[in-house]
């Protein structure tokens, strides 16, 4: 009994800080979302009923951004999972200089997002960036990659994939390392090819890791902020704006804290619904699979 109390005390400082950093904001947003706290109230909170939520429902910008954020997250996470799996398989093979290779492929993930966001802006610069220089040297004319919605969106996704692919690959690498080699050996003796091993052995055993990477990356991608703020600023004409960026603008540009809190809470709820729904679907599939396996 005494040991339990002592261990609770040991946990207390960390739990307090965690509550201050994670729990307090959520509670605060919940309260703020029913307040007007803006330049019209001298930045002080004044209750405004459900006005913020009513506004949210009719706010075309919020729903456009929600759709754009979701589209971004789904596309980049899908690409990251596929690419990450490939990279993990490559890094898992015994190669000369594997450690260095792992370290170097890890580098994009280790760099601050803003550093390469600005780097991409230079690479895509119209007309002096290398990409346009290459196009011109092939006889084409420069293209404003960051001034049309479609290409801007494409490169935002690409930049995100470039940065987070190594992270996904590492998670999957962890999964690969748990697969006993003798199983693979047994399959190979049965005459299974590489693709067959991948399909029959590797992928099924990787499912938990794929799911973990999916959940984790989806949550992060739905909160995408710094990459978009620096690479495209949400433009052109708001076509790459994410929910987090919109929430940021509401607070820092419009000084509308009540609504900013509402947008952030709504984003969080949206995230919860998506991840919770995804998790539930996966668990159902998993249980079914197990039942079938048992049968």
């Amino acid at each position: 009994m005494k040991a339990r109390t002592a261990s609770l005390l040991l946990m207390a400082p960390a739990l307090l800080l965690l509550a201050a950093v994670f729990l307090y904001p959520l509670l605060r947003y919940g309260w703020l979302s029913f307040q007007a706290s803006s330049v019209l109230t001298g930045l002080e909170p004044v209750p405004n009923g459900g006005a913020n939520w009513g506004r949210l429902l009719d706010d075309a910008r919020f729903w456009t951004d929600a759709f754009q954020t979701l589209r971004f997250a789904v596309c980049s996470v899908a690409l990251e999972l596929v690419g990450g799996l490939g990279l993990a398989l490559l890094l898992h093979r015994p190669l000369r200089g594997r450690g260095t290779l792992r370290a170097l492929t890890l580098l994009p993930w280790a760099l601050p997002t803003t550093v390469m966001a600005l780097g991409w802006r230079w690479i895509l610069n119209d007309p002096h960036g290398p990409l346009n220089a290459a196009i011109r040297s092939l006889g084409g004319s420069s293209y404003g990659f960051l001034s049309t919605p479609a290409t801007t969106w494409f490169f935002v996704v690409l930049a995100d994939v470039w940065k987070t692919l190594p992270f996904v690959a590492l998670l999957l690498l962890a999964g690969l390392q748990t697969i006993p080699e003798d199983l693979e050996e047994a399959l190979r003796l049965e005459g299974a090819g590489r693709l067959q091993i991948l399909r029959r052995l590797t992928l099924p055993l990787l499912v938990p890791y794929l799911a973990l990477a999916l959940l984790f990356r989806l949550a992060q991608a739905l909160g995408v902020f710094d990459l978009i703020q620096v690479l495209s600023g949400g433009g052109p004409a708001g076509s790459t704006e994410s929910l987090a960026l919109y929430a940021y603008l509401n607070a820092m540009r419009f000084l509308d804290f009540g609504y900013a809190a509402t947008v952030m809470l709504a984003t969080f709820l949206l995230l919860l619904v998506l991840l919770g729904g995804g998790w539930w679907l996966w668990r159902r599939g998993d249980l079914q699979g197990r039942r079938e396996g048992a049968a």
Partner: protein
Amino acid sequence: MAARPPFSSLRRWRSLPKLLTTALLALLSATVLLVLLPASGLSSSGMSAIPVAAADPVTVRVLMPAPLADAVAAPVAQFNASSPGVVLEVIRGPLDTETISDLATGSLLLGEAPFDLLLVDVSWLARYVAAGWFEPLERWFGPEVLAAMEPGARLGNGLDGHLWRMPLTGDTGLLYWRTDLMERPPRDTEELVAISRDLQRRGRVRWGYLWQGRQYEGLSCVMVEVLHGFGARWWNGSTARTELDSPEAVAAAQWLAALLQDGVSPQAVASYAENDALQSFAAGDAAFLRNWPYAWREIEKGGGPVKGKVGVTAMVGAPGEQGGGTLGTWGLSLIKGSPHPEEAVAAIRWLTGPVVQRQLAIEQGYAPTWSTLYDDPDLQRRAPLLTVQRQALQHPQLRPPTPAYAQLSDLLARQVNGMLTGQGGPGPTMAAAQRQSLQVLRSLAGPAGDTADGRPAVDR
């Protein structure tokens, strides 16, 4: 078995913690050195730069968009040479109006602004004043000072009976027309369309009228002009509400939509900002252009096909209505809590004075605010737009002087751009804009948003 890879590989790294601790300690001490050394280094170099005999000079910092900062570099040097004890330091901010506002806002929210003066766009003023970030200026600049300015230039500086900003420029939206295609500029919107269609029919020009229809604040500036030109108003200062669904407002939106439907303006206008419209006009694509004063200088400098064939006039309204360009002025405000307001005000006095404004008019085409400058024959010769700019300053239009302008502008631009790209007719578009505006005001002001006692506009 399962935990083998991470753990067994680390067994060999037994010495790693020690190595890492050493490395971390080394890094930590290096950082402490790096952070401490420069501080002492900076102060010592600062000491050596200043003659020991002089008293500590007061540094006044002003944040400006970089082009304006560069334009005033020479006058700032002049100021520093002539006023001992004060050093005026210009911080070059981003070019984009919203980005520089973000930068300023971020600093001001935290309570310690790293600048004493801020160059403020007319559309930010109400928001910054409501946030309580500015010091009133009437202690230093009485009514007699503003009386020496053109009437339009006096607008957008006062609010709630206080003076918050000293204007540095007096720009308004202008109508550009082709002197090689017509005898005289149109007097109203109907003439503008008629001339355009006639020229287009005769194949003299591809498009009639170019303006800014992209979904951004520039479209709101266009809306201010069109709404006023059709006798509507965006903002009612006495009720502190928007009036976007009035029949006049719908007629104004209808006119813009018809421009695209009838081919007077290209569909591409819906994605045009100032520079896109200017480029197309400068290439000779159109008979008319809506833009700011800077465009004239760009056209004349560029040497394109329409160089020397462009006239400028004040913005037109519907027949029987008075037209008026949107006021787009910059001015200097004093940050509350500045440790040396007197010196900062001296800097405002110099920077908004005739010497600096004269130079800005000549080099950048900015409209001055002082009436005497408009009467100066030498300046008239060197800044040919002066007469038109003065005329435009007689009836300028203010964007809604409410702290909520940024949100209202965002949703109106979004709705109108949607209409331009075919997502709805003028009636439903303006009705939706009005509904959403009231929602925003309610959410911003709480119960006050429902009543009529919001913040009244005090620009008189």
